[in-house]
C-alpha cells in the first residue's frame, strides 16, 4: 500500500498529532494508506460501488472533522476510522431508501423464494470474495459476516441464531483468534 504520492512516513503518534493540528499532508497520507482498506469494507457492506464511493468520501469528511475527538488511549486510529465507516454504512443499509431498492431488486428475481420475514438477506454468494472467511468454521464465519458486514449487534445475532449472548461473544472471540492465526 505504499504510495508515491506521499513520500513521508509517519509513526501513528506523529500522524495523529499532525492530523489534529489540521495538517492536510498528513490527511493525504492517511487517505492514501487507508482508503483502500476502508473502501473494501464499505463495498462488502453495501454491495454497490456508487454507494460505497459516496460513503467513503463522507466517512473521510467525518474523520477529518472529528479527528480532534479521537483519543489514542482508547484504541488505534484505524479501529476508530473503521468504526466510523461501518456505523455510517450500517445506517445506510438500514435506511428505508436502501431497503426499498433492495426489496425491489429482490422481487425482480422470480426464482427467489418468499422472504422469511427477516430484514437481512441470507444469501452470502456475493460475499465469497472474502476468501479468508472460508477458512473459518462456518458458524464463526457467519457470525463474523453478520457483525462486521451486516451491522448486527450481539443481541440481534443471539436472537437470530438462537444462541446465548455469552456464546455469541465467545464465538466472536474464536473467529478473531482464527483470523489472527491465519495472518501470522
Amino acid at each position, binding site marked *: 500500500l505504499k504510495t508515491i504520492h506521499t513520500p513521508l512516513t509517519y509513526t501513528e503518534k506523529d500522524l495523529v498529532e499532525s492530523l489534529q493540528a489540521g495538517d492536510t499532508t498528513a490527511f493525504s497520507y492517511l487517505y492514501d494508506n487507508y482508503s483502500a482498506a476502508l*473502501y473494501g469494507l464499505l463495498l462488502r457492506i453495501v454491495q454497490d460501488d456508487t454507494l460505497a464511493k459516496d460513503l467513503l*468520501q463522507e466517512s473521510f469528511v467525518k474523520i477529518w472533522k472529528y479527528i480532534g475527538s479521537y483519543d489514542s488511549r482508547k484504541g488505534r486510529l484505524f479501529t476508530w476510522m473503521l468504526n466510523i465507516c461501518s456505523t455510517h454504512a450500517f445506517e445506510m443499509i438500514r435506511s428505508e431508501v436502501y431497503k426499498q431498492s433492495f426489496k425491489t431488486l429482490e422481487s425482480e428475481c422470480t426464482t427467489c423464494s418468499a422472504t422469511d420475514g427477516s430484514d437481512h438477506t441470507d444469501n452470502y454468494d456475493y460475499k465469497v470474495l472474502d476468501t479468508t472467511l472460508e477458512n473459518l468454521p462456518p458458524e464463526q464465519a457467519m457470525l463474523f459476516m453478520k457483525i462486521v458486514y451486516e451491522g448486527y449487534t450481539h443481541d440481534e445475532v443471539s436472537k437470530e441464531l438462537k444462541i446465548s449472548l455469552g456464546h455469541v461473544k465467545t464465538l466472536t472471540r474464536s473467529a478473531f483468534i482464527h483470523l*489472527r492465526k491465519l495472518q501470522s
Partner: protein
Amino acid sequence: VNIQEYISTGILESYVLGLATNKEKLEVESLARQHPEIATELRAIEDALEKYSLNKAIAPPLTVKEALWAHIQTGPKRIALPTKTIQEAPPASGTSADNMIRLKPWLVSAALILIVASLGINALLYPRWQKTEEQWMALLSEKKLLAAQIQINNAPFKSSDQQFTWLQHPGLQVIALKPTGMDPHAQATVYWQPATEELFLAVHHLPAPPPGKQYQLWVIRDGKPVDAGILALQASSKQMLHSMKSIPQAQAFAITLEQAGGSSSPTLDAMYVIGNV
C-alpha cells in the same frame, strides 16, 4: 478480576468492534490501564482487524480523493480543534519591506472587503450545497429504484397487450358479478372463453382483505361450487385481468373471502359478489 477469564469472554472483541455498551467500554478502558495483558490483547485484536482489512483492500476510484479534497478545502471548520496555535508569520522588517510592493491603503481595504464578501457567500452557499448533496444522494437511490421498477412494470404491460387480443375473440362470455350485500360497492367481471376454457377475472372493487385472508373465485357447476382459483394478495391494480383456473362448464361465478391460500368449499356467508352465466 481473573484476567484470562475476562479476556476469554470476548468482551475485548466487542469493544474493538464498537459493540460494547457504555458501561462495558468504561470497564475495558479502566482494566486496560491497570493490566498490561489486557492492553496487549486489545492491541492484538485491533492489529488483526487492521491486517484483515488491509488484506481485503480495494482501491477506490481517484475521483473520491478529488471530491474529498474539494470538500475539505471549502468545508466547515473542524470540530474540537486542538489548542495548538498556528505559527504566526514573522513580522515584515524594514529591509524586506523594500522588496515588497507598497500596498496602497485603498487596495488593502478593497481586498479585505472582497475577502469578507467571499466568506459571507461561502457561509451562505455552504448549507445549500450540503443540502443539494443530500438531495443528490436521495435522487441516486431513487433512480436505482425506478430503474428496477420499470423492469417489473414492463411485464404486465406486455401481458395486457395479449389480454386485449384475447378479449376480442368471438364467443367470449362476459359475466358481471354483482354485490350480494356484504359490501354494496363490490363488483367484479368474469371473462370466460368456453371454447378454450380460459378464465380471467377483473376486480373493480372488493374491500381490502384482512391479514390472513384472501379472495377466492368459485364456479357453480351442476349446482355445486368448484374452486376457480384464488386472487393474488396484491391484486391492487384494477385494470389487470387475473388469470384463473381453466373452466369447461359454468352456470354461475361467485367470490368469497377465505383463509389465505384458499378453501376447498366456499364460506357462503362471506360471499361478496355473484353472477349467472
